[in-house]
């Protein structure tokens, strides 16, 4: 059995196992075991990938397996990974692993909760391993739809509104995507051969410029909606604020990265000429995302809203880096995906835990929590510092590379945009430090808080895992850069060839 297909099979089997679980304990046991296996599998995958590359395998995609699905249309189930997808898979497995533990105390319809959560992760894993656009799109939609139930049933606040808004906006995104993908498919064989959905095959073809210009906005915006591209980001704050903890983690941590990854892998890679011609429009939009998201976060009082807006800002930076089309900026963007994924998962996990104790998410109503729950408090500070880009943690590496890469452009337009985007760092510092100040330091505002207990083992485990990952990337970014560097070359080469 191909290791990549196992990555999809294990979650499916976990779901099947949960169906037979008798009670809450068995449910979470099965989930934890299944996702631990998944974590180990992805560690093995990283190891296999690195050894294969060191052995001198220069193929663009490794571990490729191909099954014909619909023969006459030439749709395949094709899987394969390069460094970038390996990194994303590792990220996903870390986050779903920690997500299961942060949902340890879900009691209402627990079985359904874990099933939906794991189905969601199946979609995400499937998306990252696909190199056939049909399979990719299929998994993309599988990843999106469980969100409705997850937010609608287990969410809080105006959950029904948020769930509906999120689902419909993302599905509208996939409507655009559908047009883009079918358009690419129809132009995948200009010489009259069989049409194909295979990424690598399509990349060899030169699609006419006017067709590319028509399809690029569909594809890029289609993925961009999931990546919180301004002005299509509005689902994100509501959705994140209403979602239960693990869902916010998975969604901001991984699902939003599907947008960046897809924009990179499909829109930029397959439609390079249009990407070069039209990138200025989207650069302006993503620049707006970056700054607007940061400002939005400053004015929020709800912890989850703050983090949701900050996600808009940080995810905007991913698309920003990708659109800059220099190898440094793109590397930065990929690292930002990983870094932000882990960071935001940490934040949402902490917020969930704090909310579970104080029963409020309004920062004004809390204070001095550092004294009563020091573990959570310290973790929050570490996450915050990573978010505002403190050297030694992951955020610094990612943002540094994006901005340096962007500034490599000699023209005024790109440099001006870079400078504007950099201001977001300052604003980020404002809202992060403000939250830390009000929430964790200062006097305790409510006597009831004195009785709060610090994290339990199932809470400490995910948090320590996430913090270690942040630190590891921050201290040794070259490991990640080496992992993804080789795989970036084909895309960057293709984009730069036109200049």
């Amino acid at each position, binding site marked *: 059995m191909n290791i990549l297909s196992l990555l999809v099979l294990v979650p499916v089997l976990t779901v099947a196992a949960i169906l037979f679980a008798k009670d809450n304990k068995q449910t979470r046991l099965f989930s934890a075991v299944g996702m631990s296996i998944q974590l180990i599998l992805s560690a093995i995958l990283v190891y296999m990938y690195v050894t294969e590359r060191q052995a001198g395998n220069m193929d663009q995609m490794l571990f490729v397996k191909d099954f*014909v*699905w*619909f*023969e*006459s*249309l030439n*749709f395949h189930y094709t899987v394969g990974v390069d460094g970038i997808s390996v990194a994303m898979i590792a990220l996903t497995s870390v986050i779903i692993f920690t997500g299961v533990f942060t949902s340890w105390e879900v009691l209402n319809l627990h079985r359904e909760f874990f099933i939906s959560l794991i189905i969601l992760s199946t979609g995400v894993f499937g998306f990252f391993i696909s190199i056939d656009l*049909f399979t990719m799109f*299929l*998994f993309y*939609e*599988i990843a999106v*739809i469980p969100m*409705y*139930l997850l937010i*609608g*049933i287990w969410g809080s606040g105006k959950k*029904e509104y948020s769930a*509906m808004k999120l*689902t*419909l906006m993302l*599905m*509208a995104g*996939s*409507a*655009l995507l*559908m*047009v883009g993908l*079918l*358009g690419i*498919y*129809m132009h995948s064989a200009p010489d009259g051969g069989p049409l194909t959905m295979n990424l690598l095959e399509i990349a060899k073809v030169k699609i006419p410029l006017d067709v590319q210009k*028509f399809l690029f906005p*569909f594809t890029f915006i289609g993925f961009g909606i999931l990546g919180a591209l301004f002005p299509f980001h509005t689902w994100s704050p509501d959705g994140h604020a209403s979602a239960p903890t693990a869902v916010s983690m998975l969604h901001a941590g991984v699902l939003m990265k599907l947008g960046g990854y897809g924009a990179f892998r499909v829109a930029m890679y397959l439609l390079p000429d249009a990407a070069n011609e039209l990138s200025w429009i989207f650069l302006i939009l993503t620049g707006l995302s970056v700054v607007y998201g940061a400002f939005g976060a400053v004015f929020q009082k709800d912890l989850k809203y703050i983090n949701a807006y900050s996600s808009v800002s940080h995810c905007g930076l991913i698309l920003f880096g990708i659109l800059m089309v220099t190898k440094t900026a793109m590397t930065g963007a990929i690292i930002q995906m990983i870094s932000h994924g882990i960071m935001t998962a940490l934040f949402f996990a902490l917020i969930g835990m704090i909310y579970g104790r104080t029963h409020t998410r309004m920062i004004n109503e809390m204070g001095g929590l550092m004294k009563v729950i020091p573990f959570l408090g310290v973790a929050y500070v570490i996450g915050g510092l990573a978010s505002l880009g403190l050297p030694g943690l992951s955020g610094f590496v990612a943002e540094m590379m994006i901005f340096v890469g962007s500034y490599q452009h000699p023209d005024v337009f790109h440099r001006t945009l870079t400078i504007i985007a950099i201001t977001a760092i300052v604003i980020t510092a404002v809202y992060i430090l403000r939250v830390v100040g009000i929430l964790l330091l200062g006097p305790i505002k409510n006597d009831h808080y004195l009785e709060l207990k610090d994290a339990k083992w199932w809470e400490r485990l995910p948090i320590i895992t996430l913090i270690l990952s942040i630190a590891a990337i921050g201290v040794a970014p070259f490991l990640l850069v080496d992992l993804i560097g080789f795989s970036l070359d084909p895309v960057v080469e293709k984009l730069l060839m036109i200049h």
Partner: protein
Amino acid sequence: MQIETLLLMRHEMVLVIIALIALFYEIFSKGNNKQKFIPIFIGIYFINTIIGFLPQSEGTIFGGMFVLSGVQLIMKNVLNIGVLIVLMQSAGWLKKAENKDNMLEFFVLLISTQIGMDYMISSGDFLMFYLGLELATIPIAILAAYERNKSKSAEAGIKLILSSALSSGILLFGISIFYMISGSIYFDEVATFMVNPNPLMALGLVFFFAGMSFKISLVPFHLWTADVYEGAPISVTSYLSVISKAAAAFIFTMILFKVFGQLAYLWKDIIYVLAVLTMTVGNLFAMRQQNLKRFLAFSSIAQAGFILLGIISADKIGLTAVIYFALVYIFSNLAAFGVVGAVSNFSGKETIKEYNGLYKTNPKLSLVMMLALFSLAGIPPVAGFFGKFFLFTSAAQGGYYWLILIAVLNATISLYYYLLVIRAMFIESNETPVPNFKSDFFMRTGIVISVLGIFIIGFIGPIWDYIKVVVDSF
């Protein structure tokens, strides 16, 4: 004429025999014996469905009036499967006290309409087509009025018969124009006149379009649909919205491709407009419905709009996509109707509000409903996704990207109201939910078959490839 050539009508002949069996049983049975006939009949029909898949020679009889090729065979088999599920799902309802005296009529009439559809699909000229169409329509009007003690049901019957009489008139006018120009009613001969079309031909085409649009209930010819669907018994509604619609869509597609292929530049524009209207209006109305039967009626109008996307490309992939989508649609819609029927049989509840909290009391039914609605909305991994994707692929083949965009956005809108039902079942709470219940054996089997269909069809690529191969030889 030899027996072998008559065997080309095997599907129809077997159905006639089945209808006769039901009639004779009606004559010779007394009182309560009739109930025992339900399992026997379903068993017989099951055998018929299997017989349908036996190898069959192809050819024409009656001087080209009746045509049978692989494509027609597939279409008839698809209908067979659908009718089998409908029969299973109506067993429980037929056993009810008010229906059991004339349940055999139900079988006879239902089978008669199916015979009509089979002839219609196999028609080689406009006369056979029209005969089949009428045979398929008139008994269904009686069926719609089946619940004699309910005025709504009677209303449904009269509305259906009046609107189909009107549409048949329009259709006939179109056909008579074709006859006037070409002097023939055979599809092949009429088709030869399309090379240098006469302006009158375009007029005939418009009438033909209007007539057929009534039958498939395309906007703006859809107004009869909702009332009929709401008034008719659920089994009949599901039959109307699934089997009748699929059969009409099949023959519509085939006639457009076969006879009017040369006029494609004319009717493509009409189809474009009808598709946009049908999807959008169907969706907008579906959003506001509270009664689930009306809800599914409007959603099925919107679904018919999607079928037009397969027609518009006017190529073989399009025809394949239409058949494939119909197959998927039969399973998805019948699963949804099965749940609605089961709940309605047990409690009489039919509105979305009354479904609040259904998941707490009837988790399995709610899950089936969710899968069916996801399939209708085109969400993977259930089969509806594949059906829609292939329809879009065929439209992309013709370069209709904007139409695809409109269609997918409409699919998103449809997801909105499907999610409303899912919200009612899973999220809303209710003080008096539908209590937990177990429906009869046949209903459960019918639902299980539908769900299996929803799950499996997409994953088995060869199904699509098989249809494609057959269509290629068409």
